[in-house]
């Protein structure tokens, strides 16, 4: 009986984590219910499955993604808001043998760093960009983001996003798919389907490992703190509302590698 209890206690103390996660920085610093933890779990699993932890250079942006600066047992650099893509581009071009990952939010990727995302995609940089889309600027207190849905309320659109005045939400993967070559990998996954998201991230990283082209994965992610939602509403928003506008799936898959 006592043995059983000990096992239980150990299990509670040591939850299952990807090997590439850095245990010393867990539990992680994101809010309860935040999607970043899940996206980074999928990424950690993908890194483990591909056995690339020793070669990964991970870059995180500013915004909530900055909290991932010591998340992995991988070499990591925190950049400026929107600038992770060029930092990671520079590292990759200097050291093509490294697997270079730029991790950011929707503000960093689609607003302040949009020119970097567009041009890195156009140049077909052999890097992997992973973007968590939670429809708002969360670290700064929940302002409207390029991805805020029509009618969605935020601190800077308290009466709901008016698409007449503010345009439609950015469709990132669709944009990246339109400007990349056929050997790019582009997908939108969701924390609501972790198995699929992990597979997408593995394919994105494999595309870089193969040296074929740019790879980009947007992950739909929750932000209960700024959405001001309870668990059920949060999950409904991620699972039901977000995919109505942000279609989940692969947008560009390179043909199987020859040989």
């Amino acid at each position, binding site marked *: 009986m006592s043995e059983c209890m000990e096992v239980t206690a150990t299990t509670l103390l040591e939850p299952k984590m990807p090997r590439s996660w850095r245990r010393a920085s867990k539990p992680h610093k994101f809010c309860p219910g935040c999607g970043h933890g899940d996206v980074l779990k999928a990424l950690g699993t993908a890194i483990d499955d591909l056995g690339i932890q*020793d070669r990964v250079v991970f870059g995180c942006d500013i915004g909530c993604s900055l909290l991932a600066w010591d998340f992995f047992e991988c070499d990591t*650099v925190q950049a400026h808001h929107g600038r992770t893509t060029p*930092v990671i581009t520079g590292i990759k071009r200097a050291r093509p043998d490294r697997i270079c990952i730029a991790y950011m939010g929707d503000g960093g990727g689609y607003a302040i760093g949009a020119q970097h995302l567009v041009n890195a995609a156009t140049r077909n940089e052999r890097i992997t960009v992973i973007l968590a889309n939670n429809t708002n600027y969360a670290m700064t207190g929940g302002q409207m983001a390029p991805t805020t849905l029509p009618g969605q309320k935020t601190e800077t659109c308290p009466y709901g996003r008016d698409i007449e005045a503010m345009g439609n939400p950015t469709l990132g993967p669709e944009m990246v798919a339109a400007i990349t070559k056929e050997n790019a990998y582009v997908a939108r996954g969701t924390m609501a389907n972790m198995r699929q998201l992990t597979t997408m991230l593995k394919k994105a990283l494999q595309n870089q490992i193969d040296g074929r082209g740019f790879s980009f994965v947007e992950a739909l992610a929750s932000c209960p703190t700024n959405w001001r939602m309870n668990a059920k509403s949060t999950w409904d928003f991620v699972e039901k509302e977000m995919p109505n506008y942000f279609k989940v799936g692969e947008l560009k898959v390179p043909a199987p590698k020859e040989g």
Partner: protein
Amino acid sequence: MTDQTINQQKPVQGEKRMFMTGNEVIAYAALAAGAEMMCGYPITPQNEIMHYWTRLAPKYERRFLQTEDELSAGFSTLGGVLAGRRAFTATAGPGNVLMQEPLSMAEMMRIPIVLIVQQRGGPSTATVIYSQQEVTLTCYGGNGEGARIVYSPSNHQELYDYTLKAFNTAWTYRFPTFILGDGYQAKMRESLTIYDPAVRGVQMVPTEPIIGGPGAPGTEREAVHLRNTFNTEEELYEIITAMMGEYDRIAPSIVEHEAIQTDDAEILILSHGVVSRATAAAVRELREAGIKVGSFRPITLRPFPVEALRNALKPVKKMLIVESAQGQLAKLCKEAIYGETTPIEYIFKPGVGVTAEEVVAKVKAMA
């Protein structure tokens, strides 16, 4: 000659007398310094640095990336430096404004990037060739109080010498390092000797990966986790205090100046960069006319040669500060000599060159 033999050659061998533009000088100096990577974005008057680099670099397996803007040029250069490459970028004017963002990250994270600034007129787009109006921005352009090193060369030989030196300074002390030139120096042709640093006994400081180095992180070594965000005011205070303390300690070994006939000078002319060629010529002429005049030129604008300037001031009764800007050098000088009561006069010509004749006339009026 096969590609292989080309690659094994040093881009600059022995010593060679050349007649080049300043931008060409910088490209050759960067090659001779063993710079491995340049990322850049077009802006006049620095473009030809990229033009020469893109022609020469592939022959020696050096890298180049033309980016979408100066932000990207600066940040991807930082990526190259983090990966252990001797990497640099170049810019001017409004590009220098954008470049301050990556450079402030370099200050916080102690990334040894080298940035060449060829000053042009400002504010805004202004003029494309010449000014000395980027002194304040280049010396103090970051947000917060970062530490950086700024060299202001005055001729093509110095452009070469100090570009070589900038890489060594950056990689020795791990502070971002600037060469502050201008469009006249960039576009003008002049004679100089280019050389393989080894033949002059100059060893290039070896580089190493700051991130993504050898060994498995977590098992064979600690993973590298670099950040520029801090959680508490106290944490930041400690970092800035330590950084500034270190900068103050190393400053005496970095600081440089040139003093001409200052021992008995009753009038001291202060200038920097290309303008100091006019002031040096003026000193020669004025000395021939029997006027006790000398000139002082900070070569490092940051750290500023405070002690040397204060020493040079001892016999001086009047000072003249000359610059192609509205008092940016003057601000640095006045801070350095705080407490001195020597009267100061000025020739401020923002965005316009200064001739020896103007300086001679002014000093004669002061004498």
